[in-house]
């Protein structure tokens, strides 16, 4: 056998297969669409080999071998469903469950629990255990995470996460044998910015997120694939919602962006959707107006204005919304489009390379590529100067910021426009005195795409079901306005708007919503279009 073989020929369940060398049996089987049961194995962590549920039969061993750590080799013959393999997994399941409280009916993991799944497919249908079960602690390990010790199968995924990914090492397994359970050192809770991931990767219901505890049953929730808007990294997320309300956000795998992880800001920061100071209704001069009146008021204010127009976009807007702003701007005779943003947050990096960006906006690069790379700097400076000089007749402001930490000077300048239309997520001083105030959609309620800091364009999807929107989105209102101005015959979906964007902005030219798929695409000229964005004006 050559040392430099490029493939290994081995046998999986009686079929000869070829795989790249160096893989474990589990990894290689997966490439052949066969998922071998596992608990302690996680592709993002080191191999622990402690749970033994991945037992398979090998021609090279008198006893079953664990497929998560045994590597494939020339001539290896593996049976995943032989009598020996099934028997071994059945026994493992019986042991796993002897001290388990079998409290699935009240367990938040039920429905996505690997222990449930494997018990169903591999376990015995009854217990022979007649002794007393051991009791292990249920307690908080940190402000957001509790452990329900009786459910812990001591796979150590969570411990390895804190050792290998965050390097913070807060978790350990204490005691041994049937008393062993995960814990923190007394007085040193788990509080790192990636901590919530341990809840995602716990294969059972032992680690429970305090914010999700008893909130919803897994199978009742709607799952929406989207992208986090917490910073410019654009981690892939799944938003899980019930009746249009976000219940939980979990990480969605994307090897090119966030691997299997998201940070706690991305995970927990969705309460602003229901914040008391959220703008939910349109108003004119401070008086609430209904949606239709708001629409016609928007149309009238824009079409009747013959003067100088300024538009201030925010980097929470999707590429599609930005494109519509561009279209609007080009229909107006004298219009400048600038961008503003909130103050920077704190960047944080972890030993495995995960980095949280200080730029708290998901689409700054999109603004750069679509509006122009000077939108935040020179153009913004110019717009501010015109505002301060009282030269702007109509200003359209987009303030879709979940956490509007905005510059005072900007807000003062905004107040100097003769007529002001504001789309805002939260109410604040920039809304005061607006001639027309319209509610903004939050990032989790948008359909479209975001361009992240590395030039990767990714799809964002709304958690709100079609027809359930409490108010027309910016995508709808801007298109209605363009129709009113005679710029287009009718409104189209966000994918349709994207097609227009692709035909008008070079960087997007070979893309469509379908090419973006689940994990997005790097725009070929993305990097150069993004370039250096400079600071805010």
């Amino acid at each position, binding site marked *: 056998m050559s040392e430099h073989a490029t493939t290994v020929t081995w046998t999986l369940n009686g079929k000869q297969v070829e795989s790249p060398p160096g893989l474990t049996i589990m990894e290689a089987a997966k490439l052949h669409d066969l998922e071998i049961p596992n608990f302690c194995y996680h592709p993002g962590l080191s191999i622990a080999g402690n749970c033994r549920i991945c037992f398979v039969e090998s021609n090279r061993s008198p006893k079953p071998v664990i497929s998560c750590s045994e590597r494939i080799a020339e001539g290896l013959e593996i049976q995943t469903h032989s009598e020996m393999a099934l028997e071994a997994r059945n026994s493992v399941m019986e042991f796993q469950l002897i001290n388990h409280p079998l409290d699935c009916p009240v367990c938040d993991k039920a429905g996505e629990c690997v222990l449930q799944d494997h018990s169903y497919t591999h376990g015995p249908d009854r217990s022979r255990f007649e002794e007393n079960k051991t009791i292990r602690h249920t307690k908080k390990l940190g402000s957001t995470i509790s452990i329900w010790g009786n459910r812990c199968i001591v796979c150590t995924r969570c411990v390895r996460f804190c050792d290998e990914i965050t390097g913070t090492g807060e*978790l350990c397994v204490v005691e041994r044998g049937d008393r062993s359970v995960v814990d923190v*050192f007394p007085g040193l809770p788990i509080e790192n910015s990636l901590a919530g991931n341990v809840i995602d990767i716990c294969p059972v219901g032992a680690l429970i997120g305090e914010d999700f505890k008893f909130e919803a049953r897994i199978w009742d929730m709607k799952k929406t694939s989207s992208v986090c808007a917490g910073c410019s990294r654009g981690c892939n997320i799944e938003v899980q919602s019930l009746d249009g309300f976000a219940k939980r956000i979990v990480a969605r795998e994307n090897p090119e962006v966030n691997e299997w992880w998201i940070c706690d800001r991305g995970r927990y920061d969705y309460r602003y959707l229901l914040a008391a100071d959220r703008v939910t209704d349109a108003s004119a001069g401070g008086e609430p107006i209904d949606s239709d009146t708001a629409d016609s008021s928007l149309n009238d204010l824009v079409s009747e204005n013959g003067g100088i127009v300024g538009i201030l976009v925010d980097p929470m807007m999707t590429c599609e919304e930005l494109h519509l702003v561009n279209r609007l701007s080009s229909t107006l005779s004298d219009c400048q489009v600038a961008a503003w943003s909130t103050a920077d947050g704190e960047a944080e990096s972890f030993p495995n390379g995960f980095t949280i960006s200080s730029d708290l906006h998901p689409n700054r690069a999109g603004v750069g590529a679509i509006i122009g790379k000077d939108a935040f700097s020179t153009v913004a400076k110019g717009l501010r100067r015109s505002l301060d000089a009282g030269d702007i007749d109509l200003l359209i402001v987009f303030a879709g910021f979940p956490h509007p930490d905005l510059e005072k000077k900007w807000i003062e300048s905004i107040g100097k426009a003769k007529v002001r239309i504001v789309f805002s997520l939260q109410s604040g001083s920039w809304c005061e005195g607006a001639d027309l105030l319209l509610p903004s959609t939050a990032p989790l309620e948008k359909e479209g795409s975001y361009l992240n800091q590395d030039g990767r364009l990714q799809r964002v999807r709304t958690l709100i079901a079609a027809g359930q929107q409490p108010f027309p989105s910016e995508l709808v209102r801007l298109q209605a306005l363009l129709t009113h101005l005679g710029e287009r015959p009718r409104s189209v979906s966000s994918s349709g708007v994207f097609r227009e964007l692709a035909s008008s902005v070079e960087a997007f030219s070979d893309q469509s919503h379908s090419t973006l798929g689940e994990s997005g695409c790097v725009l070929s000229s993305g990097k150069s279009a993004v370039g250096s964005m400079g600071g805010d004006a």
Partner: protein
Amino acid sequence: MAEITFSKKSLERYEWLLTRYPSKEAVLLPALHLAEEEFENIGVKEMKYVADLIGIPPARVYGVLTFYTHFRRAGCGKYHIQVCSTLSCALRGSHEVYQRISERLGIEAGETTPCGRFTLSKVECLGSCDTAPMLQMNDDYHEGLDLELVDQLIEQWRAELPEGGSS
């Protein structure tokens, strides 16, 4: 929390240990033995000290310390009596040995006498099956036990550790 630290002698010993083990983590077990010698019992303060000394997360020390039964954890009596209850000892009467000690000290396995002098534990095989039944008291093995010998031992320990003399 009062500051604690190894004596100069223990620190020298620790430095020497570092040269004998391939990694800092590997030195944890002998460092815990040193801590036991130095501080008698190992509690939160002591674990934290050892963790900081070695430069590993305190949780690692906590996990390792609690994995083993033979370390003297915080709250352990001056005399830690560990009665072997595995097969050979069990066949040769370890249960009676345990029972006798439990009655005479008035505590069950896992408990410490209110005076803080004695802690009683049941442990697995201590590798002295040929002299079963046996127990370990702190660092010493007491082998080939019978009830008379057990009584004698208890008297002897009580005499060594007069009540009120515990720390």
